[in-house]
């Protein structure tokens, strides 16, 4: 059986033209054609063995929050190409963790950083330089002792955090060594869409971001809100927003809860590596 031309992503007119000139199968064209469009149409992703992938993954390594319990939970999850969702109610520490990771990713490799930049896409204007400075100070005092570097470096760490939109992302990635992409938070973007376009928008966004993430080697973190769902009249339960089709698409989900003013609980809800489990941690 040969591959029919109609199985390619051709426009209807293009297909009709080819068909009327007697081209039916991919093989009828293949031998002579080498234009970019044709190569894109008949693209077959490269085959890698599990061994190649394992060696590759090990080189890049995990980004750490420097928060023992939390890091243990997310060991091998914050790796390039993975989409990690952090969900929780307002005030459960989602953005806090994002800020922390923004800083850590820029630290030198020998203390567990990635020497790369972070890209923070915020959709609800909650990016706060003040909070970031606070985190930086706490971390600074601890690490500066070991690092013995001047105050200038702190500023330098802060500056490469940018705001931009997804459209410019690809142009951007060429000149900037991005190791972390944060979308804080995804819920309003998707919820403002019409019911009919929600799903394919979501799936296209994910596939494109993941493609870039693998190509340029960055980790994707998405934050999400919690919503209420009704089972029956008297039976409602809290669940992360955006439904199951969305949950299916993320690779890892962590649910955050605030247990007391200082203590937070993180539960791993979905992961290919680990069992569902939870840890308690605080931010100091």
């Amino acid at each position, binding site marked *: 059986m040969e591959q029919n031309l109609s199985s390619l992503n051709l426009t209807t007119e293009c297909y009709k033209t080819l068909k009327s000139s007697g081209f039916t199968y991919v093989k009828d064209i293949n031998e002579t054609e080498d234009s970019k469009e044709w190569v894109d149409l008949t693209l*077959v992703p490269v085959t890698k063995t599990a061994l190649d992938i394992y060696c590759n993954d090990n080189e890049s390594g995990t980004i750490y929050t420097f928060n023992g319990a939390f890091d243990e939970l997310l060991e091998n999850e914050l790796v390039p190409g993975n989409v990690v969702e952090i969900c929780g109610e307002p005030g459960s520490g989602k953005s806090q963790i994002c800020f922390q990771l923004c800083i850590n990713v820029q630290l030198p490799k020998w203390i567990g950083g990635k020497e790369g930049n972070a890209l923070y896409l915020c959709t609800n204007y909650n990016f706060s330089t003040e909070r970031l400075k606070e985190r930086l100070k706490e971390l600074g005092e601890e690490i500066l002792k070991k690092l013995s570097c001047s105050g200038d470096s702190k500023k330098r760490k802060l500056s490469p955090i940018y705001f931009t939109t997804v459209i410019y992302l690809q142009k951007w990635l060429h000149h900037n060594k991005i190791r972390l992409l944060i979308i804080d938070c995804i819920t309003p973007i998707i919820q403002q869409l019409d019911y009919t376009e929600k799903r394919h928008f979501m799936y296209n966004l994910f596939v494109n971001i993941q493609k870039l993430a693998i190509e340029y080697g960055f980790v994707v973190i998405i934050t999400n809100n919690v919503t209420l769902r009704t089972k029956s009249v008297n039976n409602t339960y809290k669940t992360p927003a955006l439904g199951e089709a969305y949950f299916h698409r993320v690779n890892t989900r962590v649910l955050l809860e605030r247990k007391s003013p200082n203590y937070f609980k993180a539960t791993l809800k979905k992961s290919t590596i680990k069992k569902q489990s939870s840890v308690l941690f605080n931010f100091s």
Partner: protein
Amino acid sequence: MSRLSTKTHPLLTESVIDNLFSKQIFTVTNYIDTDVKRLVNITNLTYKNVLTIRKHIINKNAAVVKNGLSAFEEWLDKNALLQTGIQNIDSILNGGLSTGHVYELCGLPASGKTQFCLTVTMNIAQKLKQHVYYLDCKGDFNATRIKSMLDARKVTNNDTIEIMSKILVKRINTLYELVNSLYQIKTETNNGLNVKLIVVDSLPALAYQFEEFSKCNSALNHLVNVMKFLTSEYYVCFVVTNILTTWYEGNIGEEKLLSEKIGSGKYWQSVPNTRLKFVSGEVDGKYEISIVKSNEIITGTKCYVRIGDVGMM
């Protein structure tokens, strides 16, 4: 190849083909549809030669008739059961995954579908020492997990390397890429690569990218075509993961009805031979697996499995 060329038949020289093309006769189908006398005029070949070419084309391109007995013998010869290595699942599947079948795993997110895929992939690479294709559509293939499962089973380093290089992974971004990949696998199988299991994880990640259903169904149709070809010609077994979504219907104040919807559209629902449903147990860590569609096994048969360090068991 359906387009006429000098390779179709030695009598079709380049000048003859140019003549045919100028009269809008491009493909073998066009050639057979055209009146023989007209072909004689166009090609300047003798009546007999035109008929010889016609006969040759028909012989080469028409479907082959098989008799029932030889088809059955071939099936006996080539069909096999691939043991998943997960005891409870093997027993409800009457021994294992049957080659030539398409299995679908459906379930809510985080219900163990990917874990099943990874475990089976590894077991078959380990026990049958065969190549397995893992077509990863949403980045869920995790080599670290495979490595840790092998470590937990105390497999030696050399074996680990061997097993992990038997697992072939492709990262797929669109449904078109998936179709192209399967055609490439078809060519590779034809050239002697022995693959008996192809895992597609997951289909809705590709199917839900389409805005129009008609476009999605057309691409799915091509996918199913090549899948069925691989299953029937090369006795390959497919494992495809799909999604379940829950919907609560009813009005305010009324008791709501819970319904579950299988993903990837209505068309896909009739494609798999066997559909397994995965339900994660929130309390005791057990996962329930039941058969919801099959032409061989009684539907409703179920079993329980656990997911541990060594994989699903």
